[in-house]
């Protein structure tokens, strides 16, 4: 019990956040929007204080906070929205925020690709199907979630396990280890292993036009890694796409069986 109390700064904001999600999930009757919103915002602020400290770079920190908050809040709105059309639009917002995070992670090509594939293709196709199949907006099965309590408990357990692992073996453990504190465990999964080299073509090289910078995240660097180290995987991915196309055509409803 003592160790559980020691983890209270970790567990309390998670419990608050999951409680907010549980209150917001679609159910019969009115939902407590204001209480749930207060719970969720306080949980996010608490988590920010514990886990997401601001760095020296003000612009990068601000962008990170904006995109992370956008992704998380839009995700909550998506799973709690009872109208499926609005839920799909909130999913587009999640995608755009995640693309902002990709930009912070020096992956502009990936951000553009994700916007095109997700927001441009997947969300539009799903919206198309929703509008064909469900023109009346929210139906009975959208207004009542399936086992919200059990799902919230399962989500809380999963999130608590992930965050506990991150706290014990993550970045703070590195910071303490630099101060030579022997009580802290070694950061096992964040540091690159010393004995294993990364793939040679995936390492950044000096840019041709600006020799003082490396080409991490540029199209040249990604392409060299993709078609050098991972060439066979690219061929496999192309095969999977072809098989999925054939399967989709085979599964699609025939015109003789009538359309929607």
């Amino acid at each position, binding site marked *: 019990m003592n160790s559980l109390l020691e983890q209270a700064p970790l567990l309390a904001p998670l419990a608050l956040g999951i409680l907010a999600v549980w209150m917001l*999930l679609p159910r019969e009757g009115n939902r407590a929007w204001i209480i749930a919103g207060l719970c969720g915002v306080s949980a996010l602020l608490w988590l920010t204080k514990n886990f997401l400290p601001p760095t020296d770079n003000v612009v990068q920190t601000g962008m990170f906070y904006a995109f992370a908050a956008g992704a998380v809040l839009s995700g909550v709105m*998506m*799973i709690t929205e009872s109208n499926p059309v609005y839920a799909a639009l909130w999913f587009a917002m999640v995608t755009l925020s995640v693309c902002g995070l990709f930009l912070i992670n*020096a992956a502009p090509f990936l951000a553009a690709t994700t916007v095109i594939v997700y927001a441009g293709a997947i969300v539009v196709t799903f919206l198309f199907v929703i509008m064909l199949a469900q023109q009346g907006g929210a139906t009975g099965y959208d207004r009542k979630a*399936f*086992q919200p309590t059990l799902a919230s408990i399962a989500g809380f357990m999963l999130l608590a396990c992930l965050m506990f692992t991150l706290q014990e073996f993550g970045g703070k453990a590195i910071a303490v280890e630099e101060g030579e504190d022997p009580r802290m465990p070694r950061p096992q999964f964040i540091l690159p292993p010393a004995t294993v080299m990364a793939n040679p073509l995936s390492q950044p090289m000096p840019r041709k036009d600006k020799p003082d910078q490396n080409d991490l995240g540029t199209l040249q660097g990604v392409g060299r890694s993709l078609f050098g180290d*991972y060439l066979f995987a690219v061929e496999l991915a192309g095969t999977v796409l072809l098989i999925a196309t054939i399967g989709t055509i085979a599964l699609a409803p025939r015109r003789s069986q*009538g359309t*929607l």
Partner: protein
Amino acid sequence: MTAQLESQLVVGAILFVLGAIGFLTRRNLILMMLSAEMMLHGVAVNLTAFGRYHGNASGQVFTIFVLTIAACEAGLALALILGLYQRRKSLDVQLWGNLGEPDLPQMSTEEGGRFAPQHPADMPILTPAGRMPNSPVVPSNTKI
């Protein structure tokens, strides 16, 4: 850079868990697929953050593969959802509770749970295999 990595891992974990909760609670087939895509987004944030932290391009390449598989999954899922919608005229996933094993407990909340097939269009149409038997099927008044 270390603090930035940990923050991104936290965001990835939260997105993954939100997608899991959505997949478990929503009963609309399309929203279940969208929740699964949100779990993939959480994984993609993790991959790019680690790629940036370790300073190589492998994380971004893995994310490209995740994107490929997500596109395949969306196409197949839409074809399946359209096929299911044609049979029941509804996107409710609980109408397909009779696909489960018969001795498992039913977790359904209302509407009686099991949805018995009411007309033969609900049953799958199997492609006939093998040679067509000819002796009893041929009508007697046909001249061979």
